[in-house]
């Protein structure tokens, strides 16, 4: 049996996203930005106003590293949905 320790996976709906998370949310919602991204990704990243480290992450396309940075800058956890096996 795993030991239960008191760490909550709490998401705060009022919490602000960091720069990278905000940019990716904008990329999902802003059609002109997404079109620019699809046409010239390097240019869209250069024009993003993101810190150099975040721009490097986007250029690398490393999804796992991007997710870690989003969690870190927002101070929130990444949580996945699982089924319980009976």
């Amino acid at each position, binding site marked *: *049996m*795993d*030991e*239960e*320790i*008191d*760490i*909550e*996976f*709490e*998401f*705060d*709906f*009022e*919490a602000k*996203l960091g720069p990278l*998370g905000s940019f*990716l*949310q904008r*990329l*999902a*919602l802003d059609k002109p930005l*997404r079109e620019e*991204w*699809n046409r010239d*990704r390097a240019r869209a990243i250069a024009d993003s106003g993101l810190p150099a480290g975040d721009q490097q992450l*986007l250029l690398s*396309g490393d*999804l*796992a590293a*991007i*997710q870690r940075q*989003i*969690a870190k800058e*927002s101070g*929130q*956890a*990444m*949580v*996945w*949905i*699982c*089924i*319980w*096996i009976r």
Partner: protein
Amino acid sequence: MGSGSLTVVGTGIALDAHLTTEARAELEAADVVLGLVADPVAQAWLARLNRNVRSLHRHYREGRDRALAYEAMVDEILAEVRSGKRVCAAFYGHPGIFVTPSHEALRRARDEGFPSRMLPAVSAEDCLFADLGVDPAACGCQSYEATDFLLRRRIVDATAALLLWQVGTVGRRGASGEAQPAGLPLLVESLLERYPAGHEVVVYEASPYPGIDPIARRLPLERLTAADVTALSTLYVPPLEQRPPDATALERLGLS
């Protein structure tokens, strides 16, 4: 306040790009949204759709048996329905695929006479077929939860594709914030009884962000280790050789 109802929706994998019109309408119209999505960006996006949104994540505890967390989630959903609200429960991906509390909440709400339904959505499996270029109809496709696959010694047809879900938590019953595939060596051992050591498998994770590529790590089965999997990884095992058609069946069906 109405007499209480429950609609269970899926948010899809990639934010707005995957949300159906029907699900959006429910999310926007609900008195309260109880959400269980996978990352902070999705959480912030969900809060834009309905101001009265609340997370179900607080029921997870590191190491706590997930069954207890799911029971608490169901209780919270049902309490809102019983109070007369139009409740929308929103889950990451498809709400009916690999989501225990969605099915249980619906079952109880129906038993208690409340109008209840589930809406379909884009699942991680849908993304996998698109991203890896796999057609499940080509050779057939088997799909198992990784721990269940081991515990029940599921029978595999190696001439059909095999999908193993939740390899990032294989062998663990508790919740965790990171991949902890304690049972991965046993899983590889089990697969090596059925597939050659050099058989190429794909560790896959759909991208939750439009414009960002998914993870698709190809490697020989024998080299698969914990370092290769993330918390959300799915293992795709391609089929071996195509199974030849049965001559008798061909003849009886008039297809020979």
